Structure formats: C-alpha cells, structure tokens
C-alpha cells in the first residue's frame, strides 16, 4: 500500500488544496479510504488526520469500507423520482438484500444511490459500473443483475 500511496502522492503538490484530489485517487486505487490511507494523506497534505476524516465524511463520494466488485448506482434525481426511480431502488435493494451504501455478503455488489447523473431523459436510470441502463422497469432488474460479472 505504501508504494501505491507514494505513487499517488507523486502526482500532487503536498498542500491542503490537494486533499480532495488525493482522496479521490486513493479511492480510485483501493476502492475506499482506509484509516491508514487517510492518515498518510493527512501527512502529505500537512493537515491533521481528523481534518481529513472531517472532509472525507462530508462528501458523499467517499467510502470507508471496501466495496463490492460491482457498483450498482440507482439515480434518485427528480426526473427519475417522478418516473418511478424509488421503485427501482426498492427492487434492487430487495434482490440484493442490502440497503443503499451496503455491500452484499459475497462482495459481488455494492448498492449506492446518486443524487442525479444528468441522464434525466432516460429516467428512471440505473448504472452498473460504467454502463447506463435507462427507462428502467422493476422487472428488468433481475436480468441486469444476473448479467453482471462475478
């Protein structure tokens, strides 16, 4: 981990304004922010670790537990809501038996919600890793989940 963090740090200038990009890179590499990684980021950006924790927990993007191999994001934007996005979220949650923010016990899926991805014309929309699934219907959920890699 140390080497990978050093590699990430080498792309940034070690000041406070680099913190969020540094954390984003760390999460990009490890999938989440471990206490050790946050501590290292604090030293690099010359802040106290608790400030890093305060910043990281402020932003919805950051995760503090390892994530699943596949990320399911269900859009909760206005258009999606009006078009029945809540029902899609319910369906995914019940099929995976997790709450938003949680990871399935087998580590295959992490379920998340997103405030709006700007694909309002496709509402309701959900995302599996980088793939967009627009005009979702509850009955399409199972097929999409089954078609996703282990």
């Amino acid at each position: 981990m140390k080497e990978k963090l050093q590699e990430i740090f080498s792309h940034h200038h070690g000041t406070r304004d680099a913190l969020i990009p540094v954390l984003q890179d760390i999460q990009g590499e490890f999938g989440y922010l471990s206490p050790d990684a946050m501590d290292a980021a604090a030293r690099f950006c010359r802040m106290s670790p608790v400030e890093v924790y305060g910043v990281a927990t402020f932003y919805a993007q950051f995760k503090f537990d390892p994530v699943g191999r596949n990320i399911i994001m269900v859009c909760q934007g206005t258009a999606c809501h009006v078009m029945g996005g809540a029902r899609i979220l319910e369906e995914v949650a019940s099929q995976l038996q997790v709450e938003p923010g949680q990871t399935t016990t087998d580590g295959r899926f992490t379920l998340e919600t997103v405030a709006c991805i700007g694909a309002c014309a496709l509402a309701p929309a959900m995302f599996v890793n980088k793939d967009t699934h627009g005009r979702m219907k509850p009955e399409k959920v199972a097929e999409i989940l089954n078609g996703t890699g282990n």
Partner: protein
Amino acid sequence: MEPAIRIQPGKDRQVLVCRGTGCESQKAKVIFDNLEKELEKAGLSGSVETKYTGCHGFCQQGPTIMVMPAGTFYCNVTPDDVAEIVQTDLKGGQPVERLLFLDPKTKDRVLTFRDMRYFNPQRRIVLRNCGFINPEDIEDYIAVGGYDGAKKALSMTQQQVIDNMKASGLRGRGGAGFPTGMKWEFANRSVADQKYIICNADEGDPGAFMDRAVLEGDPHSVLEGLIIGGYAIGATKSYIYVRAEYPMAYERAIIAIDQAKKKGYLGKNIFGSSHDFEIKVKLGAGAFVCGEETALIASIEGKRGMPMPRPPFPAVKGVFGKPTNINNVETLANIPVVMTKGGEWFASVGTEKSKGTKVFALAGKITYSGLVEVPMGTPLREIIEEVGGGILNKRKFKAAQTGGPSGGCIPAAHFDVPMDYENLTQLGAIMGSGGLIVTDETTCMVDMAKFFLTFTQKESCGKCVPCRLGTKKMLEILTDVTKGKATLEDLDQLVALAEDVKNGSLCGLGQTAPNPVLSTVRYFRDEYEAHILKKECPARVCVRLIKFQVNPDKCKKCGQCASACPVEAITWKKKEAALIDSEKCIKCRSCILACRYNSID
C-alpha cells in the same frame, strides 16, 4: 441555428453520431464502429467523414445520428440499422424512411432536424455547437468561429469588455440571475496580487443536465468564456469545478485545456498578448451545497464544503483569500457569442429584463425529454406542447417544477406564463439552473415536496441550525402527511417553520429549501388537506394511503392493470372489472401507472 461546421478536405458529407449520455448508454459506440466498417465496405471512406459529437439534445429518441450538410436526422438507430443507412442514404442518396422522426401530430416522417417540431422553436446560443462539432478537437471549434471572442476581448480594454457584458444584460444562469457584467466589475475593482475566475460546473439540481451537455459537447466555449472573463477581471488563474458524477465532462475539459495550451490560447502570453491565463479542473466529491459559491471555494481549498456568511463576498475574498469570480457553465458558454456578436445583439433576444436564451432540461411526464434552448420569455405552454410534444400518454398537465430543490411549481392555471426570471419568481417558482420537470395527475405534490426536502435535508451541510434541524423537522411533518398521520396544526407548523428556515438560514441552500413546500402548499393545499383530513392521496402515490382496490364505477375493463402487475395479484376477465388480491399485492403501483382511467383507489 446551426453553425458552419468544418468538413475534412476532399470529403463532401459528414455523419454526426451523438455521444451524449443518453445515446452513449444505448450503444452509440457500436453504431459508430459499424458505421466506419460499412463505409469502408461501401468504398465511401474517402468521401464521407464520421464524427462523434456531444448531445444532439433529442435524448428521448436516441441514439440519434445526423447526415450533414443535408441535415437528415435518424432516430432510435440500432447498430443493425447502420448498413442500411450507408447503403440507402450515403450510397443511394435516399433517406431511410423508417428511421426518420415521425411527427405525432401530422403522422408524417420528417427528413431533417431543421423541420422537426422539437428543434424548430428553439434558438440555440448556448448549445450552438453541441451536436455539430467534435468536442475533442479544437480545430472543429475554431472552424465555427471559436476563440474569436477571446481574441476580440484581448484587443479591448478590460472596461470595454465589462461594458459590453453589461450591455448584453446577461444574467447568471446558475440560479440567482445576478447580472454577469456587474459581477465582473466588482471582481475587477478588487485589488490583489492574484485573482481567480471559477467555472461552477457542479450542476447540483437533480433534474438538470445542460451544464453537463455543454462541457461534454462544447468544452472550448466554456474555456473561451473563462479566458474572456479572466481578462476582464484581471484573473490569471482559473478552476473548472466539475461534479464527480460527470466523468466524461471532466475528461473532455482536460482534453480541451491541453489542446488550448498547445495552441497558445492558455498559458503565458495567451494569443500573443501580455495576459497569462491557466485553467485547472477540480473534481467535486458529491455535495450539492458546493454549488453555493463560498462552499465551492471551501471545497477547492480542500475543506468541508460549508458556506461562509457574506460579506466578505468572493469578489473581495474568495479562493485562498483572493478576489474570485464564479460563473456557471451556461453563463460562460454564452460569453463568446456576446463578444463576437456584441452585447446589443445579445440583448435583442429575450425579454426586457431577461436577455438571451435559456436552456431547459425537460424531463418527467413529457413526451420528448431532452435539452431545449428557447429565448427568454417563451411561454411554458409552447415549451411543453410544441417542443416537448405534450404530456406523456396523453395525461393531464398538472404542474411544471422549475429550479429543482430550490424552486417551486407552476400550476396549470399559469400554463401560459412567459418563462423569465421575474415571472417565475412572482409565481414562487424560480428559474434556477433550468431543470423543468413536468408532472401530471399521477404525481402527488406532497410527495414531490417530500422528495425535494429529503434531498435538501440530506445535502444540508449542517452548519446553521435552521437548515440542519429545521429541514429535518419539516421532513418529519411531510412524512407524517404522506402517511396520513398529520393534523392541520402540523400543516400550519410546517408553513411557519418553512418561513423561519427560509429567512433564518445561512446560505442559499437553506434559504430556498422550503420553496418546494411553500409552493406546493400555495397551489395544492387541497392535496395536503386530502392527505390530512381524508387520509387520501389523490394522485395515488403515497402508498400508505392507497387502498389498492379497483373502483368498479370508473373501471373501463381494459385489463391493462392485470398485465402490468408483476406478481399476478390482479384477476381480470373480459368485460369485467378487475379485482386485486390484497394478499398477493406488493403495493408497487404498477397497476396505477398502467391504468389510464385513474380507476384504482
């Protein structure tokens, strides 16, 4: 409305493949690859150019492709359709009829986008290049007059640039509508060794995506806007703050900056002038409040995105304590046009106090959702009925929600309202960033208010008490209303609290968070009262108040409900009213949405 696009030398036609998010998610890339293969096969590679573009705007009928210069517009294209397009159109010179847009009113196929009812009433200034140029190629942008505005600005004095901007009457498109020229003037007047100009691309309204489309489809116009603004206020450093949910916008901005640097449009002595200018891209991290200027500044500085009371204003003390000017994407995309065509020209578009155009993200219960750009003052009815093709499934228009979580709704009684800042404010809705969510009779306005409050409550930074706890209490009351557990006293308390949150909160988020509640109570008090007094949800959205029983008096015995039910809880025989088995019913509302006659209670 279309720019004079560049075609490679020696080629006579160009196929533009939309790679906006909507089309991209429906195999636009495969379509593009197939296209190149088929052209090769047909021996047309030499004469036909293929090009990726940003969003064409007609997301509802995606994936879409256009053949230029003819303007032939194909909808709902699948990868398998490509061969036919190549053979019939590009080689044979005949359009592929079945893929042309079918006008629902005339039932005619429409050949070019120029003749389509969706595009026709639009007036594209912001989206002038979106869908026509390759956003990853600076030469495309230059070919349509790109960076002429920046060059012109640099030949003028700072004050002349500001005066031109003031003459244009352009107002900030981020929501508040503050005159951009004045904003620049403030920042220009601040004296400091370093100033900043920031592009706010943290499009937070969950229902708006024009900033995304511009950054993805025409990033150089934003860069050019920043260069002009930076010069006007005396800033040499700039940030584009993009939300993390827009990875493609982020990448395109980076590519655009690299290309502009190589051209000498960014860096030291840009365009050969004595002005230096650099742009960095910062990725947001998922916080709506960072659309607020002081929170955005905190976020750039690597802090919790909590707003600071103003004064001091960012124009005096902004990022890293230096004078800072912040404009949003749509505002910036207007600026090159204001420069090249002049402030007076720009001011000729729109209404007396609201100049230029506005891009709306049309979504919800509308036939054609997508991005539409119309002159300020265009009546709501025209946007919905002409451009948007009317309400989905021919249901009844109930209200349009504008301004997202900070906004309010325009009820049917005001369907003809001209859409500009003043009119919307007067109705208790706001222009906001341009989210325009259309609702119909199956939308519950209490649920809508609750949806927005859930959002703002979750996105509140927590710094000030009215927003942190006031919205929480408001949400608790709204939740009670949707469960039929509230009283009329609770409703009074909700309104009173909403006023205090509005007046007492620190920043725009809290000050506007009560708007969806106040607006829906204002226009749809009867719906609230139905929930409270009759324990009914008239739109049949609030599940706790729905009986899930077929009303035999209203039932037209069509059976749509039964076929929509995912758990086979509905039995139906021809010529008989349907029957719902409450044991099996999972209260998913599929039947309610399927029933055109509102006959399920």
